[in-house]
């Protein structure tokens, strides 16, 4: 049975699109047929960071409006055979999303994919609403700071009251917390909230923390989902989070600050 997973946060720029791409690639690596759908209509970021930008001909909105078939708009990624994206439109605005249109596209995707990842735009407006409305599971991306946590809390409230599952009195949307851009050093310095404080404030099962890392920006500039960028902390942290998402028990890493040893400092490793 296909699962619809929304990646959402409320606040902008916290790492939703990075996480959508990473989870898409991670699930595909684990053998699941996965598609990532860009709900950020008008901005369109996902195709860029997944390296598909030049191959976008038709988009999500074209499909909704019957101007293109779904398989004309789906783009297979270069890196993985079982990973696809459905790009957002750059020219239309978010009002061109309709509930029925979104539903029909998702229903169609359910027939050929195991996981449908919905990359939500920031805010609680139309695009964000439709990205989460049909979700079975939600990954709440939060940065370790008060305003981001507050916005995530707000989104959790909306998921619990305004998603289709809530409105139909079905089993609730399954929630997961992912802390992005975590810097143990800045936690020690008191500039950031500690991961367990965030977890306690939001009271949602914890998928893991992704360390703040330059490799994220570098990977997205190259159009490679960060998780495929072997050996970086961010890639490993995302892979652990994907494993936990799938129910595996994996010890947490990247939560502590390690002072670099003499050689580490010398060679900057």
């Amino acid at each position: 049975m296909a699962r619809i997973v929304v990646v959402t946060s409320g606040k902008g720029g916290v790492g939703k699109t990075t996480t959508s791409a990473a989870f898409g690639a991670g699930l595909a690596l684990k053998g699941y047929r996965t598609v990532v759908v860009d709900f950020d209509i008008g901005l369109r970021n996902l195709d860029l960071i997944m390296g598909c930008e030049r191959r976008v001909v038709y988009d999500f909105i074209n499909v909704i409006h019957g101007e293109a078939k779904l398989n004309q708009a789906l783009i297979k990624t270069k890196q993985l055979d079982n990973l696809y994206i459905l790009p957002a439109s750059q020219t239309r605005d978010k009002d061109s999303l309709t509930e029925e249109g979104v539903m029909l596209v998702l229903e169609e995707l359910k027939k050929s994919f195991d996981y449908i990842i919905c990359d939500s735009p920031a805010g609680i407006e139309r695009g964000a609403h439709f990205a989460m409305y049909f979700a079975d599971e939600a990954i709440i991306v939060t940065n370790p700071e008060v305003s981001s946590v507050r916005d995530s809390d707000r989104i959790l409230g909306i998921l619990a009251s305004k998603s289709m599952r809530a409105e139909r009195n079905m089993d609730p949307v399954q929630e997961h917390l992912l802390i992005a851009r975590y810097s143990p050093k800045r936690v020690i310095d008191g500039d950031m909230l500690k991961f367990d404080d965030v977890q306690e404030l939001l009271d949602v099962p914890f998928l893991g923390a992704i360390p703040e890392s330059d490799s994220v920006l570098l990977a997205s500039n190259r159009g490679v989902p960060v998780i495929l960028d072997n050996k970086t902390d961010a890639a490993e942290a995302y892979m652990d989070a994907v494993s936990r998402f799938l129910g595996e028990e994996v010890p947490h890493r990247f939560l502590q600050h390690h002072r670099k040893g003499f050689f580490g400092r010398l060679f900057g490793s």
Partner: protein
Amino acid sequence: MTTNTDSYKSGQTQGQPGSAASSFELKGSMLTVIELHVLDPVLANFAAEIKKKVSQAPDFFNRAPVAIDLAQVKNTESIIDFADIVEVLKRNQLIPIGVRNGSAAQHKRALDQGLFSLATSSMRSFDSQQDTQTELQQKAKQQKQQKQQKEENKDLKEKSSYSSSNANAESTSSSNKNSGFYTAHQAYSKTVYQPIRSGQQVYAKGCDLVILSTVSAGADIISDGHIHVYGSLRGRALAGVNGDESARIFCQNLEAQLISIAGYYRVIEEIEENFRNQSVQIYLKDQRVTIEKM
């Protein structure tokens, strides 16, 4: 390098509303309905088309309530075969509930098929909830001022801890006690199992409120009676909002932004440090919000 966090696998516990002494409870709620807009009253091919639509997304349509909207039927005299519509919808596991935007005659015929007249506009915005909230806070403020005055009038010599903006006011509301100002709350409660998030509001009207989870900063919990919170209380808690001065707030972990009993309140800055993160009860003593460790 492993760190122990709450085991991921533990998941969340999702409870069912518990049994209350009363056999039912009335709640306002918003229900999303599917609107069936009738474009042509003849409805040719209706059965086949509905069947097709439903088969495209069986999960979405399964047992969904349907409102029949006649706004786009130009001729208000048109006879619409409601019996047929109802039959087809039901056969496809949809639940027809009513009609709207038709003529009086059309609505009357719809009623014969068990379809009620629905209000034209069904949307209630999120903001209206927040309006009630500010209203409530205003009410709380008014009550506080009222009582403030009363107290000052009673004993002008005693130093009141409230700022006396109107010390010479005439005694206007001396007979408050038996004015029927509040109605005592009844002996049953409303129980909430899920976390209450920023922007959400829960009101236990006419009864106690029991919350088994956390109340986030930015959330409001309101009750005509007592409030019990078994998770952390980080939002605003208003007990006895209808005026019951015997109402109390009990909480396991006090981090509240505001606590109020019968309109008297304290904001976070007025809560002593030594009560923060403590298990406490809060009640009214000599018309002051009093906190006591438990």
